[in-house]
Protein backbone atom coordinates (compact mmCIF):
# COMPACT_ATOMS: atom_id res chain seq x y z
CA UNK A 1 0.00 0.00 0.00
CA UNK A 2 2.86 2.43 0.83
CA UNK A 3 6.09 3.04 -1.09
CA UNK A 4 9.47 1.98 0.30
CA UNK A 5 10.34 5.64 0.96
CA UNK A 6 7.12 6.23 2.93
CA UNK A 7 7.78 3.17 5.06
CA UNK A 8 11.37 4.24 5.59
CA UNK A 9 10.41 7.73 6.82
CA UNK A 10 7.58 6.27 8.87
CA UNK A 11 9.92 3.76 10.56
CA UNK A 12 12.71 6.30 11.13
CA UNK A 13 11.14 9.73 11.10
CA UNK A 14 13.57 12.68 10.94
CA UNK A 15 13.32 15.88 12.99
CA UNK A 16 10.79 14.73 15.59
CA UNK A 17 10.39 17.00 18.56
CA UNK A 18 9.92 20.55 19.75
CA UNK A 19 12.08 23.68 19.37
CA UNK A 20 11.73 25.39 22.75
CA UNK A 21 12.60 28.91 21.51
CA UNK A 22 11.00 28.50 18.07
CA UNK A 23 10.65 31.57 15.86
CA UNK A 24 7.47 30.17 14.33
CA UNK A 25 5.00 27.40 15.12
CA UNK A 26 2.48 25.98 12.64
CA UNK A 27 -0.46 23.91 13.90
CA UNK A 28 -2.73 22.20 11.40
CA UNK A 29 -5.40 19.52 11.40
CA UNK A 30 -7.61 17.54 9.08
CA UNK A 31 -11.10 17.08 10.45
CA UNK A 32 -11.99 14.01 8.37
CA UNK A 33 -9.11 11.73 9.19
CA UNK A 34 -8.29 13.40 12.52
CA UNK A 35 -4.61 14.00 11.72
CA UNK A 36 -2.87 16.77 13.67
CA UNK A 37 0.54 18.19 12.79
CA UNK A 38 2.67 20.81 14.54
CA UNK A 39 5.82 22.23 12.95
CA UNK A 40 8.41 24.39 14.78
CA UNK A 41 10.98 26.52 12.91
CA UNK A 42 14.12 28.39 13.90
CA UNK A 43 15.01 31.10 11.39
CA UNK A 44 18.58 32.19 10.57
CA UNK A 45 20.38 34.05 7.79
CA UNK A 46 22.34 32.75 4.82
CA UNK A 47 25.39 34.43 3.28
CA UNK A 48 23.07 36.70 1.23
CA UNK A 49 21.39 37.86 4.47
CA UNK A 50 18.17 36.09 3.46
CA UNK A 51 15.95 34.38 6.03
CA UNK A 52 16.46 30.65 5.99
CA UNK A 53 15.00 27.75 7.95
CA UNK A 54 17.92 26.91 10.15
CA UNK A 55 16.22 24.22 12.19
CA UNK A 56 12.85 22.52 11.98
CA UNK A 57 11.02 19.93 14.13
CA UNK A 58 7.59 18.35 14.09
CA UNK A 59 5.04 16.50 16.17
CA UNK A 60 2.31 14.58 14.40
CA UNK A 61 -0.62 12.43 15.35
CA UNK A 62 -1.71 10.56 12.27
CA UNK A 63 -1.36 7.64 9.95
CA UNK A 64 1.90 6.38 8.44
CA UNK A 65 1.50 8.78 5.51
CA UNK A 66 1.04 11.76 7.84
CA UNK A 67 4.20 10.88 9.79
CA UNK A 68 6.24 10.20 6.65
CA UNK A 69 5.14 13.45 4.98
CA UNK A 70 5.96 15.42 8.15
CA UNK A 71 9.39 13.85 8.19
CA UNK A 72 9.99 14.49 4.48
CA UNK A 73 8.64 18.05 4.59
CA UNK A 74 11.03 18.95 7.41
CA UNK A 75 13.93 17.32 5.56
CA UNK A 76 13.15 19.27 2.39
CA UNK A 77 12.57 22.60 4.17
CA UNK A 78 15.72 22.53 6.29
CA UNK A 79 18.26 25.07 4.95
CA UNK A 80 15.84 26.54 2.43
CA UNK A 81 15.07 30.26 2.32
CA UNK A 82 11.62 31.30 3.52
CA UNK A 83 10.64 32.07 -0.09
CA UNK A 84 11.81 28.66 -1.28
CA UNK A 85 10.03 26.91 1.59
CA UNK A 86 6.78 28.72 0.79
CA UNK A 87 7.05 27.51 -2.80
CA UNK A 88 7.27 23.86 -1.76
CA UNK A 89 4.20 21.96 -2.96
CA UNK A 90 2.41 18.85 -1.76
CA UNK A 91 3.52 17.30 -5.05
CA UNK A 92 7.18 17.92 -4.14
CA UNK A 93 6.70 16.01 -0.88
CA UNK A 94 4.69 13.20 -2.43
CA UNK A 95 7.24 12.83 -5.27
CA UNK A 96 10.15 12.73 -2.83
CA UNK A 97 8.36 9.88 -1.05
CA UNK A 98 7.90 7.86 -4.24
CA UNK A 99 4.21 8.77 -4.34
CA UNK A 100 1.32 8.38 -1.90
CA UNK A 101 -1.90 6.34 -2.21
CA UNK A 102 -4.65 8.60 -3.63
CA UNK A 103 -6.63 8.47 -0.41
CA UNK A 104 -3.57 9.76 1.53
CA UNK A 105 -2.56 12.64 -0.77
CA UNK A 106 -4.15 15.15 1.59
CA UNK A 107 -1.47 14.27 4.18
CA UNK A 108 1.18 15.97 2.03
CA UNK A 109 -1.03 19.07 1.84
CA UNK A 110 -1.22 19.00 5.63
CA UNK A 111 2.59 19.11 5.79
CA UNK A 112 2.94 22.09 3.43
CA UNK A 113 0.13 23.80 5.35
CA UNK A 114 1.96 23.32 8.64
CA UNK A 115 5.07 24.85 7.11
CA UNK A 116 3.11 27.83 5.73
CA UNK A 117 1.58 28.33 9.17
CA UNK A 118 4.95 28.25 10.91
CA UNK A 119 6.30 30.85 8.47
CA UNK A 120 3.16 32.98 8.82
CA UNK A 121 3.63 32.85 12.59
CA UNK A 122 7.26 33.93 12.22
CA UNK A 123 6.45 36.80 9.84
CA UNK A 124 3.63 38.21 11.97
CA UNK A 125 5.60 37.90 15.22
CA UNK A 126 8.48 39.79 13.62
CA UNK A 127 6.15 42.39 12.10
CA UNK A 128 7.39 41.48 8.62
CA UNK A 129 5.15 41.86 5.55
CA UNK A 130 2.98 38.78 4.88
CA UNK A 131 2.45 37.98 1.19
CA UNK A 132 -1.23 37.95 0.13
CA UNK A 133 -1.36 34.30 -0.83
CA UNK A 134 0.15 33.33 2.54
CA UNK A 135 -2.55 35.32 4.37
CA UNK A 136 -5.24 33.63 2.29
CA UNK A 137 -3.82 30.19 3.00
CA UNK A 138 -3.59 31.04 6.68
CA UNK A 139 -7.33 31.87 6.84
CA UNK A 140 -8.26 28.54 5.21
CA UNK A 141 -5.90 26.51 7.41
CA UNK A 142 -7.07 28.22 10.59
CA UNK A 143 -10.72 27.40 9.93
CA UNK A 144 -9.83 23.77 9.18
CA UNK A 145 -7.88 23.44 12.43
CA UNK A 146 -10.77 24.87 14.42
CA UNK A 147 -13.08 22.33 12.81
CA UNK A 148 -10.65 19.50 13.59
CA UNK A 149 -10.32 20.46 17.22
CA UNK A 150 -14.06 20.78 17.60
CA UNK A 151 -14.87 17.46 15.94
CA UNK A 152 -11.91 15.26 16.66
CA UNK A 153 -10.48 16.05 20.04
CA UNK A 154 -12.12 14.92 23.21
CA UNK A 155 -11.75 17.15 26.24
CA UNK A 156 -9.11 14.87 27.73
CA UNK A 157 -6.79 15.12 24.72
CA UNK A 158 -7.23 18.89 24.70
CA UNK A 159 -6.24 19.05 28.34
CA UNK A 160 -3.10 17.09 27.61
CA UNK A 161 -2.18 19.30 24.68
CA UNK A 162 -2.59 22.39 26.84
CA UNK A 163 -0.35 20.95 29.54
CA UNK A 164 2.42 20.41 27.04
CA UNK A 165 2.21 23.92 25.61
Amino acid sequence: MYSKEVMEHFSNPRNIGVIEDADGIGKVGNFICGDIMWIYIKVGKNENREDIIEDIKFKTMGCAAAIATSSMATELAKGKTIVEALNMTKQDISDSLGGLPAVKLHCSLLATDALVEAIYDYLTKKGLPVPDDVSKKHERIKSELEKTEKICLNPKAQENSLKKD
Partner: protein
Amino acid sequence: MKRIYLDHAATTPVDDRVLKAMQPYLCERFGNASSIHRIGQEAKEALEKSRQIIADKINAHPSEIVFTSGGTESNNFALKGVAFSNRDKGRHIITTRVEHDCVLNSCRWLETQGFKVTYLGVDENGMVRPDDIRQAITKDTLAVSVIHGNNEVGTIAPIREIGKICREKGVYFHTDACQSFTKVPIDVEKDYLDMLTINAHKIYGPKGVGALYIKKGTTIDAWQHGGGHERNLRSGTENIPGIVGFAKAVEIACKSDVVQMTEFRDILITRVLSEIADSSLRGHPAHRLCNNATFSFSGIEGESLLLRLDMHGIACSTGSACSSHTLEPSHVLMAMGLSHEDAHSSLRFSVGKENTAEDIEHTVDMLKKEVGLLRKMSPVGGMDVQ
Protein backbone atom coordinates in the same frame (compact mmCIF):
# COMPACT_ATOMS: atom_id res chain seq x y z
CA MET B 1 11.09 -13.03 13.04
CA LYS B 2 8.13 -15.00 14.32
CA ARG B 3 4.83 -13.90 12.86
CA ILE B 4 2.05 -13.43 15.37
CA TYR B 5 -1.37 -13.39 13.82
CA LEU B 6 -3.99 -11.58 15.91
CA ASP B 7 -6.53 -10.79 13.22
CA HIS B 8 -8.76 -13.87 13.37
CA ALA B 9 -11.88 -11.72 13.11
CA ALA B 10 -10.74 -10.88 9.57
CA THR B 11 -10.02 -14.48 8.65
CA THR B 12 -8.41 -17.64 10.03
CA PRO B 13 -5.94 -20.08 8.53
CA VAL B 14 -7.42 -23.37 7.30
CA ASP B 15 -7.02 -26.13 9.92
CA ASP B 16 -4.95 -29.12 8.73
CA ARG B 17 -7.87 -31.46 9.37
CA VAL B 18 -10.12 -29.24 7.25
CA LEU B 19 -7.61 -29.21 4.40
CA LYS B 20 -7.29 -32.98 4.57
CA ALA B 21 -11.06 -33.40 4.43
CA MET B 22 -11.32 -31.07 1.43
CA GLN B 23 -8.49 -32.47 -0.68
CA PRO B 24 -10.22 -35.57 -2.12
CA TYR B 25 -13.06 -33.38 -3.39
CA LEU B 26 -10.77 -31.27 -5.56
CA CYS B 27 -9.33 -34.03 -7.77
CA GLU B 28 -10.58 -37.56 -7.16
CA ARG B 29 -14.16 -36.86 -6.10
CA PHE B 30 -14.63 -33.81 -8.27
CA GLY B 31 -18.20 -34.60 -9.31
CA ASN B 32 -21.10 -32.24 -9.82
CA ALA B 33 -23.71 -33.00 -7.17
CA SER B 34 -26.46 -32.61 -9.76
CA SER B 35 -25.10 -35.42 -11.96
CA ILE B 36 -26.90 -38.76 -11.87
CA HIS B 37 -23.83 -40.95 -12.31
CA ARG B 38 -21.86 -42.35 -9.43
CA ILE B 39 -19.17 -39.66 -9.52
CA GLY B 40 -21.89 -37.06 -9.18
CA GLN B 41 -23.72 -38.97 -6.49
CA GLU B 42 -20.52 -39.23 -4.46
CA ALA B 43 -20.42 -35.43 -4.41
CA LYS B 44 -24.10 -35.29 -3.55
CA GLU B 45 -23.51 -37.59 -0.58
CA ALA B 46 -20.72 -35.39 0.70
CA LEU B 47 -22.94 -32.33 0.26
CA GLU B 48 -25.81 -33.79 2.24
CA LYS B 49 -23.57 -35.17 4.96
CA SER B 50 -22.07 -31.69 5.38
CA ARG B 51 -25.51 -30.14 5.48
CA GLN B 52 -26.48 -32.53 8.27
CA ILE B 53 -23.40 -31.65 10.34
CA ILE B 54 -24.08 -27.92 10.08
CA ALA B 55 -27.81 -28.33 10.77
CA ASP B 56 -27.05 -30.39 13.88
CA LYS B 57 -24.74 -27.69 15.21
CA ILE B 58 -27.55 -25.13 15.34
CA ASN B 59 -30.46 -27.53 16.04
CA ALA B 60 -31.94 -27.08 12.56
CA HIS B 61 -33.28 -29.53 9.97
CA PRO B 62 -30.89 -30.10 7.04
CA SER B 63 -33.56 -28.87 4.61
CA GLU B 64 -33.33 -25.49 6.32
CA ILE B 65 -29.66 -24.97 5.36
CA VAL B 66 -28.83 -23.21 2.08
CA PHE B 67 -25.16 -23.08 1.11
CA THR B 68 -23.85 -19.78 -0.25
CA SER B 69 -20.53 -18.17 -1.14
CA GLY B 70 -20.13 -16.67 2.33
CA GLY B 71 -21.40 -14.19 4.90
CA THR B 72 -21.91 -11.30 2.50
CA GLU B 73 -24.07 -13.36 0.16
CA SER B 74 -26.07 -14.89 3.02
CA ASN B 75 -26.83 -11.47 4.48
CA ASN B 76 -27.78 -10.02 1.08
CA PHE B 77 -29.98 -13.03 0.40
CA ALA B 78 -31.73 -12.91 3.78
CA LEU B 79 -32.57 -9.21 3.65
CA LYS B 80 -33.37 -8.77 -0.02
CA GLY B 81 -35.04 -12.17 -0.31
CA VAL B 82 -37.43 -11.59 2.57
CA ALA B 83 -38.08 -7.95 1.66
CA PHE B 84 -39.04 -8.65 -1.94
CA SER B 85 -41.00 -11.78 -1.19
CA ASN B 86 -43.13 -10.01 1.42
CA ARG B 87 -43.38 -6.54 -0.09
CA ASP B 88 -47.17 -6.77 -0.30
CA LYS B 89 -47.37 -7.30 3.47
CA GLY B 90 -45.10 -4.46 4.53
CA ARG B 91 -42.15 -2.30 3.61
CA HIS B 92 -40.32 -1.77 6.90
CA ILE B 93 -37.07 -3.34 8.08
CA ILE B 94 -35.30 -2.79 11.39
CA THR B 95 -31.57 -3.13 11.88
CA THR B 96 -28.83 -1.43 13.92
CA ARG B 97 -26.07 1.08 13.28
CA VAL B 98 -23.38 -1.46 14.19
CA GLU B 99 -24.01 -4.07 11.49
CA HIS B 100 -21.42 -5.27 9.01
CA ASP B 101 -21.33 -3.22 5.81
CA CYS B 102 -23.00 -6.02 3.84
CA VAL B 103 -26.13 -5.68 5.97
CA LEU B 104 -26.04 -1.87 6.04
CA ASN B 105 -25.47 -1.56 2.31
CA SER B 106 -28.17 -4.14 1.52
CA CYS B 107 -30.54 -2.05 3.64
CA ARG B 108 -29.48 1.18 1.95
CA TRP B 109 -30.13 -0.41 -1.42
CA LEU B 110 -33.55 -1.65 -0.24
CA GLU B 111 -34.34 1.96 0.66
CA THR B 112 -33.81 2.87 -3.00
CA GLN B 113 -36.33 0.15 -3.88
CA GLY B 114 -39.15 1.61 -1.82
CA PHE B 115 -38.44 -0.02 1.55
CA LYS B 116 -38.11 1.87 4.81
CA VAL B 117 -35.30 1.00 7.18
CA THR B 118 -34.86 1.92 10.84
CA TYR B 119 -31.22 1.93 11.98
CA LEU B 120 -31.29 1.59 15.76
CA GLY B 121 -28.59 3.08 17.94
CA VAL B 122 -26.64 1.20 20.58
CA ASP B 123 -25.32 2.03 24.04
CA GLU B 124 -21.70 2.94 24.80
CA ASN B 125 -20.79 -0.76 24.87
CA GLY B 126 -22.22 -1.37 21.42
CA MET B 127 -25.23 -3.19 22.86
CA VAL B 128 -28.63 -2.87 21.19
CA ARG B 129 -31.58 -2.51 23.59
CA PRO B 130 -34.32 -5.11 22.98
CA ASP B 131 -36.90 -2.57 24.12
CA ASP B 132 -35.87 -0.26 21.29
CA ILE B 133 -36.63 -3.07 18.88
CA ARG B 134 -40.00 -3.73 20.46
CA GLN B 135 -40.88 -0.06 20.12
CA ALA B 136 -39.63 0.22 16.54
CA ILE B 137 -41.81 -2.63 15.27
CA THR B 138 -44.90 -1.36 13.43
CA LYS B 139 -47.67 -3.05 11.44
CA ASP B 140 -45.53 -2.40 8.36
CA THR B 141 -42.43 -4.21 9.74
CA LEU B 142 -41.32 -7.29 7.83
CA ALA B 143 -38.04 -8.23 9.46
CA VAL B 144 -35.47 -7.40 12.10
CA SER B 145 -31.75 -8.03 11.51
CA VAL B 146 -29.25 -7.73 14.35
CA ILE B 147 -25.60 -8.81 14.30
CA HIS B 148 -24.89 -11.50 16.93
CA GLY B 149 -21.19 -11.01 17.74
CA ASN B 150 -20.00 -7.61 16.57
CA ASN B 151 -17.07 -7.91 14.16
CA GLU B 152 -15.34 -4.74 15.35
CA VAL B 153 -15.84 -4.58 19.10
CA GLY B 154 -16.98 -8.12 19.92
CA THR B 155 -20.16 -7.23 21.79
CA ILE B 156 -22.67 -10.10 21.83
CA ALA B 157 -26.26 -9.08 21.24
CA PRO B 158 -29.08 -10.67 23.29
CA ILE B 159 -30.54 -12.53 20.30
CA ARG B 160 -32.81 -14.80 22.32
CA GLU B 161 -34.56 -11.83 23.88
CA ILE B 162 -34.82 -10.05 20.53
CA GLY B 163 -35.97 -13.22 18.80
CA LYS B 164 -38.75 -13.68 21.33
CA ILE B 165 -40.00 -10.14 20.74
CA CYS B 166 -39.99 -10.68 16.98
CA ARG B 167 -41.82 -14.00 17.25
CA GLU B 168 -44.49 -12.42 19.46
CA LYS B 169 -44.94 -9.56 17.03
CA GLY B 170 -44.95 -11.85 14.00
CA VAL B 171 -41.92 -10.38 12.21
CA TYR B 172 -38.98 -12.31 10.83
CA PHE B 173 -35.74 -12.27 12.80
CA HIS B 174 -32.35 -12.62 11.13
CA THR B 175 -28.94 -12.55 12.76
CA ASP B 176 -25.48 -12.35 11.23
CA ALA B 177 -23.48 -14.84 13.29
CA CYS B 178 -20.29 -14.94 11.20
CA GLN B 179 -18.14 -13.91 14.17
CA SER B 180 -19.96 -15.83 16.89
CA PHE B 181 -20.67 -19.15 15.18
CA THR B 182 -19.06 -22.05 17.13
CA LYS B 183 -17.89 -19.56 19.79
CA VAL B 184 -21.29 -18.83 21.30
CA PRO B 185 -23.90 -21.63 21.33
CA ILE B 186 -26.71 -21.02 18.86
CA ASP B 187 -29.98 -22.92 18.88
CA VAL B 188 -32.33 -21.73 16.15
CA GLU B 189 -35.37 -22.98 18.07
CA LYS B 190 -34.54 -21.57 21.48
CA ASP B 191 -33.22 -18.33 19.96
CA TYR B 192 -36.40 -17.83 17.88
CA LEU B 193 -34.40 -17.45 14.69
CA ASP B 194 -35.99 -17.33 11.25
CA MET B 195 -32.71 -16.75 9.43
CA LEU B 196 -29.10 -17.14 10.45
CA THR B 197 -25.95 -16.23 8.53
CA ILE B 198 -22.81 -18.30 9.12
CA ASN B 199 -19.58 -18.84 7.22
CA ALA B 200 -16.45 -20.96 7.14
CA HIS B 201 -13.39 -18.75 6.93
CA LYS B 202 -13.77 -17.30 10.44
CA ILE B 203 -13.69 -20.79 11.97
CA TYR B 204 -10.60 -22.32 10.33
CA GLY B 205 -12.52 -23.31 7.22
CA PRO B 206 -11.95 -22.15 3.63
CA LYS B 207 -12.93 -18.77 2.17
CA GLY B 208 -15.81 -18.53 -0.26
CA VAL B 209 -18.34 -20.70 1.55
CA GLY B 210 -21.12 -19.93 3.97
CA ALA B 211 -24.72 -20.77 4.64
CA LEU B 212 -28.05 -19.24 5.40
CA TYR B 213 -30.37 -21.08 7.76
CA ILE B 214 -33.94 -20.40 6.69
CA LYS B 215 -36.64 -21.64 9.04
CA LYS B 216 -39.18 -23.90 7.38
CA GLY B 217 -42.20 -21.84 6.29
CA THR B 218 -40.29 -18.58 5.82
CA THR B 219 -41.43 -16.67 2.75
CA ILE B 220 -38.27 -15.74 0.86
CA ASP B 221 -37.37 -15.17 -2.79
CA ALA B 222 -34.29 -16.65 -4.37
CA TRP B 223 -31.69 -14.03 -5.16
CA GLN B 224 -29.55 -16.05 -7.54
CA HIS B 225 -31.45 -17.78 -10.35
CA GLY B 226 -30.33 -20.67 -12.50
CA GLY B 227 -30.53 -24.43 -12.43
CA GLY B 228 -32.56 -24.66 -9.24
CA HIS B 229 -29.88 -25.85 -6.84
CA GLU B 230 -30.41 -25.70 -3.07
CA ARG B 231 -34.15 -26.32 -3.36
CA ASN B 232 -34.47 -23.53 -5.89
CA LEU B 233 -33.23 -20.99 -3.35
CA ARG B 234 -29.65 -20.57 -4.53
CA SER B 235 -28.69 -21.73 -7.99
CA GLY B 236 -25.15 -22.55 -9.00
CA THR B 237 -23.09 -25.73 -8.83
CA GLU B 238 -22.34 -26.40 -5.19
CA ASN B 239 -18.81 -25.73 -3.97
CA ILE B 240 -18.31 -29.27 -2.68
CA PRO B 241 -14.68 -28.97 -1.44
CA GLY B 242 -15.59 -25.74 0.32
CA ILE B 243 -18.76 -27.15 1.84
CA VAL B 244 -16.95 -30.30 3.02
CA GLY B 245 -14.30 -28.06 4.58
CA PHE B 246 -16.96 -25.91 6.21
CA ALA B 247 -18.58 -28.98 7.79
CA LYS B 248 -15.21 -30.26 8.98
CA ALA B 249 -14.44 -26.88 10.56
CA VAL B 250 -17.76 -27.04 12.40
CA GLU B 251 -17.08 -30.61 13.51
CA ILE B 252 -13.68 -29.84 15.01
CA ALA B 253 -14.70 -26.59 16.74
CA CYS B 254 -14.63 -27.39 20.44
CA LYS B 255 -15.18 -25.89 23.81
CA SER B 256 -11.54 -26.15 24.84
CA ASP B 257 -10.62 -23.78 21.97
CA VAL B 258 -13.12 -21.26 23.27
CA VAL B 259 -11.69 -21.60 26.79
CA GLN B 260 -8.18 -21.11 25.42
CA MET B 261 -9.11 -18.03 23.38
CA THR B 262 -10.95 -16.52 26.34
CA GLU B 263 -7.84 -16.94 28.47
CA PHE B 264 -5.59 -15.23 25.88
CA ARG B 265 -8.12 -12.44 25.37
CA ASP B 266 -8.28 -11.79 29.10
CA ILE B 267 -4.49 -11.70 29.52
CA LEU B 268 -4.34 -9.19 26.70
CA ILE B 269 -7.08 -7.01 28.16
CA THR B 270 -5.76 -7.12 31.72
CA ARG B 271 -2.18 -6.33 30.79
CA VAL B 272 -2.99 -3.56 28.31
CA LEU B 273 -5.39 -1.75 30.63
CA SER B 274 -3.06 -1.96 33.62
CA GLU B 275 0.25 -1.27 31.85
CA ILE B 276 -0.63 1.29 29.18
CA ALA B 277 -1.98 4.61 30.47
CA ASP B 278 -4.90 6.23 28.66
CA SER B 279 -5.97 2.98 27.05
CA SER B 280 -9.57 1.85 27.07
CA LEU B 281 -11.38 -1.33 26.17
CA ARG B 282 -14.10 -0.93 23.55
CA GLY B 283 -17.19 -3.10 23.45
CA HIS B 284 -19.01 -4.81 26.30
CA PRO B 285 -16.73 -5.84 29.21
CA ALA B 286 -18.58 -9.12 29.86
CA HIS B 287 -20.84 -9.94 26.91
CA ARG B 288 -18.06 -10.15 24.35
CA LEU B 289 -16.66 -12.64 21.87
CA CYS B 290 -14.04 -14.97 23.33
CA ASN B 291 -11.44 -13.78 20.80
CA ASN B 292 -11.96 -10.01 20.62
CA ALA B 293 -9.93 -7.34 22.45
CA THR B 294 -10.43 -3.86 20.97
CA PHE B 295 -8.72 -0.85 22.53
CA SER B 296 -8.35 2.89 22.06
CA PHE B 297 -4.96 4.47 22.83
CA SER B 298 -5.49 8.19 23.19
CA GLY B 299 -3.22 10.56 21.30
CA ILE B 300 -2.21 8.17 18.54
CA GLU B 301 -3.65 6.95 15.29
CA GLY B 302 -4.61 3.30 14.84
CA GLU B 303 -3.05 2.78 11.43
CA SER B 304 0.36 3.98 12.60
CA LEU B 305 0.28 1.63 15.55
CA LEU B 306 -0.88 -1.24 13.35
CA LEU B 307 2.01 -0.72 10.93
CA ARG B 308 4.59 -0.39 13.70
CA LEU B 309 3.36 -3.67 15.23
CA ASP B 310 3.49 -5.21 11.76
CA MET B 311 7.21 -4.41 11.69
CA HIS B 312 7.50 -6.72 14.69
CA GLY B 313 5.54 -9.41 12.82
CA ILE B 314 2.34 -8.76 14.77
CA ALA B 315 -0.84 -8.60 12.66
CA CYS B 316 -3.94 -6.84 13.99
CA SER B 317 -6.55 -4.51 12.57
CA THR B 318 -8.04 -1.03 12.80
CA GLY B 319 -11.79 -1.49 13.07
CA SER B 320 -12.95 -3.85 10.39
CA ALA B 321 -10.51 -4.85 7.68
CA CYS B 322 -13.01 -3.71 5.05
CA SER B 323 -12.86 -0.08 6.10
CA SER B 324 -9.07 0.24 6.15
CA HIS B 325 -9.05 1.96 2.75
CA THR B 326 -11.33 4.77 3.86
CA LEU B 327 -10.52 7.73 6.09
CA GLU B 328 -13.81 7.88 7.89
CA PRO B 329 -13.76 6.57 11.44
CA SER B 330 -15.48 3.22 12.04
CA HIS B 331 -19.28 3.49 11.94
CA VAL B 332 -19.47 1.03 14.84
CA LEU B 333 -17.29 3.12 17.16
CA MET B 334 -19.10 6.30 16.14
CA ALA B 335 -22.46 4.65 16.88
CA MET B 336 -21.11 3.85 20.36
CA GLY B 337 -20.61 7.58 20.89
CA LEU B 338 -16.83 7.76 20.64
CA SER B 339 -15.18 11.01 19.54
CA HIS B 340 -13.47 11.00 16.13
CA GLU B 341 -10.14 11.02 17.92
CA ASP B 342 -10.95 7.97 20.05
CA ALA B 343 -12.40 6.13 17.06
CA HIS B 344 -9.26 6.81 15.04
CA SER B 345 -7.05 5.62 17.87
CA SER B 346 -8.64 2.17 18.06
CA LEU B 347 -7.06 -1.17 17.36
CA ARG B 348 -8.63 -4.63 17.24
CA PHE B 349 -6.82 -7.77 18.33
CA SER B 350 -8.59 -11.06 17.68
CA VAL B 351 -6.89 -14.13 19.06
CA GLY B 352 -7.03 -17.64 17.67
CA LYS B 353 -6.56 -21.20 18.83
CA GLU B 354 -3.06 -21.46 17.33
CA ASN B 355 -1.74 -18.51 19.35
CA THR B 356 0.47 -19.17 22.36
CA ALA B 357 0.78 -17.46 25.73
CA GLU B 358 4.19 -16.14 24.59
CA ASP B 359 2.55 -14.56 21.53
CA ILE B 360 0.25 -12.59 23.76
CA GLU B 361 2.98 -11.51 26.21
CA HIS B 362 5.26 -10.44 23.35
CA THR B 363 2.43 -8.48 21.74
CA VAL B 364 1.77 -6.50 24.91
CA ASP B 365 5.51 -5.77 25.29
CA MET B 366 5.72 -4.45 21.72
CA LEU B 367 2.48 -2.56 22.11
CA LYS B 368 3.83 -0.73 25.18
CA LYS B 369 6.97 0.19 23.30
CA GLU B 370 5.23 1.43 20.17
CA VAL B 371 2.44 3.30 21.96
CA GLY B 372 5.13 5.13 23.92
CA LEU B 373 7.05 5.96 20.75
CA LEU B 374 4.03 7.25 18.85
CA ARG B 375 2.91 9.31 21.81
CA LYS B 376 6.31 10.98 21.91
CA MET B 377 5.72 11.96 18.28
CA SER B 378 2.20 13.17 18.93
CA PRO B 379 1.27 16.76 19.75
CA VAL B 380 -1.60 15.39 21.85
CA GLY B 381 0.50 12.62 23.33
CA GLY B 382 -1.46 11.73 26.42
CA MET B 383 0.40 10.08 29.27
CA ASP B 384 3.55 8.07 28.83
CA VAL B 385 3.51 4.33 29.20
CA GLN B 386 4.19 3.23 32.75
